[in-house]
């Protein structure tokens, strides 16, 4: 074995792989949340729909997204493999256990499995449909001077070969943009309370997973220092376990409430 495979197959090396892939996925979540916050714009989905075009066509983003899919699968299955090894390390279990560790830290594998199922459901809801199903198109007519955008649904049988058609008409001072209406699909899915509930539960799992996961990744890399560890723990709890899951959960709730109020 070379030194690298020897290092990565040791117990510490195996955890370093969990730590690095986990931190990558944490940065992905930050990007994913900031991008999806555009769902809250009152622009008929213009910002979100053109953002979706950018994210699925810009080459650098595409490359990173393939890494992202790979890291999600690697993190999930490597984690399950480590859990299997850890269970094997205690072949006879205790009759009575009084735990002194946090619930999150003891249930990372279960929380992670819930998240994997959640990710499959989530990608089936939007990613798969966006790439493989004939979603309706929407046309935005923008008054270039005022910036006001008018959204018009395209006919149901309308389709186009490119992801985004953009035409500027200098005489009338307007700009036409035609894109797939993923925004409408998002608002349609979240009219169903069952989906809203599934997504909220998924975010609970995410919060508890990251409450332990984010700060644990630093400990695994050896980054434990009296000056910085409190900060890392604070970020783990307030940003990754609370703020980010709430930010994501706000989206299904927003669309459901909007639907209830008749919009």
């Amino acid at each position, binding site marked *: 074995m070379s030194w690298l495979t*020897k290092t990565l197959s040791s117990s510490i090396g195996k955890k370093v792989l969990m730590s690095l892939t986990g931190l990558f996925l944490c940065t992905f979540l930050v990007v994913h949340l900031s991008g999806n916050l555009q769902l809250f714009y009152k622009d008929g989905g213009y910002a979100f729909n053109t953002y979706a075009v950018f994210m699925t066509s810009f080459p650098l983003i595409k490359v990173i997204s393939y890494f992202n899919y790979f890291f999600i699968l690697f993190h999930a299955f490597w984690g399950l493999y480590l859990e299997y090894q*850890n269970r094997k*390390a*205690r072949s006879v279990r205790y009759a*009575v256990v*009084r735990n002194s560790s946090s619930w999150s830290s*003891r249930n990372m594998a279960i929380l992670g499995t819930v998240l994997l199922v959640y990710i499959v459901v989530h990608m089936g809801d939007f990613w798969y449909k966006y790439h493989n199903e004939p979603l309706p198109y929407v046309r935005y007519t923008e008054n270039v001077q005022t910036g006001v955008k008018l959204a018009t649904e395209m006919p149901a049988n309308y389709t186009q070969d490119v992801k985004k058609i953009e035409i500027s008409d200098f005489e009338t001072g307007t700009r036409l943009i035609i894109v797939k209406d993923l925004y409408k699909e998002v608002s349609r899915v979240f009219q169903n309370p069952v989906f809203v509930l599934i997504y909220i539960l998924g975010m609970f799992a995410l919060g508890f997973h990251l409450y332990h996961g984010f700060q644990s990744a630093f*400990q*695994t890399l*050896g980054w434990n220092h009296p000056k910085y560890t409190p900060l890392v723990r604070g970020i783990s709890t307030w940003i990754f376990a609370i703020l980010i899951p709430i930010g994501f959960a706000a989206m299904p709730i927003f669309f459901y409430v909007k639907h209830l109020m008749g919009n």
Partner: protein
Amino acid sequence: MSEGNMNLTLKVWRQKNAKVNGSLETYQVNGISEDMSFLEMFDVLNERLVSDGKEPIAFDHDCREGICGMCSMYINGRPHGPLEAVTTCQLHMRSFKDGDTIVVEPWRATAFPVIKDLVVDRSAFDRIIASGGYISVNTGNAQDGNALPIPKEEADKAFAAAACIGCGACVAACKNASAMLFVSAKVSQLALLPQGQPEREERAIKMVAQMDAEGFGNCTNTGACAIECPKEISLENIARLNREYLGSSIASTVG
């Protein structure tokens, strides 16, 4: 015999040897004094078992003052019982109430097979130490203490790590039966001091390799080990071991 008024129900793991399955047996112990240590309470029970012509309960113990690391009982779901920063021998019956039911099990880890009843084989720890937990020095006169200046903070950290008595409570408490707290204390106490430097890189690599070979689980940073450790070894040591191991693997030529 005892002079006390505590009556307790004990559920103790009994297992003839490593090859057969064991089970929890129930014993009634009466007239226990609250000033007895937990092990003395077991002595009382064993004396009775012997006088009844029964096999006494095998359990590890030696110094009975919390420094040898032999006692190893998993009491009511916690290694060394309900108190923090004490070993089983330093636990007294005043920590329990009259009428309590107390469940006593051996350390549970695949790397610590049960030899008999509450006695487990902890020689895996010895093999980890033998793989690199030492410094090689020639015999002869000790050097003058001031010849090697050591910052006070570093000396304190090394001393705190060296407080590890190798009892294995960290392994017993960990949901993964990981030995990281033990190995990290043993690596830290030498890595922090000048005497430990010559073999520093080799030590981290070899001790981790031996730890893995013994079949301990992987650390998931739950922190249960440090909470249950009778010598309060800190999780900072595990981070240091991670640094020592990764640094040695990546940067040195020994691994």
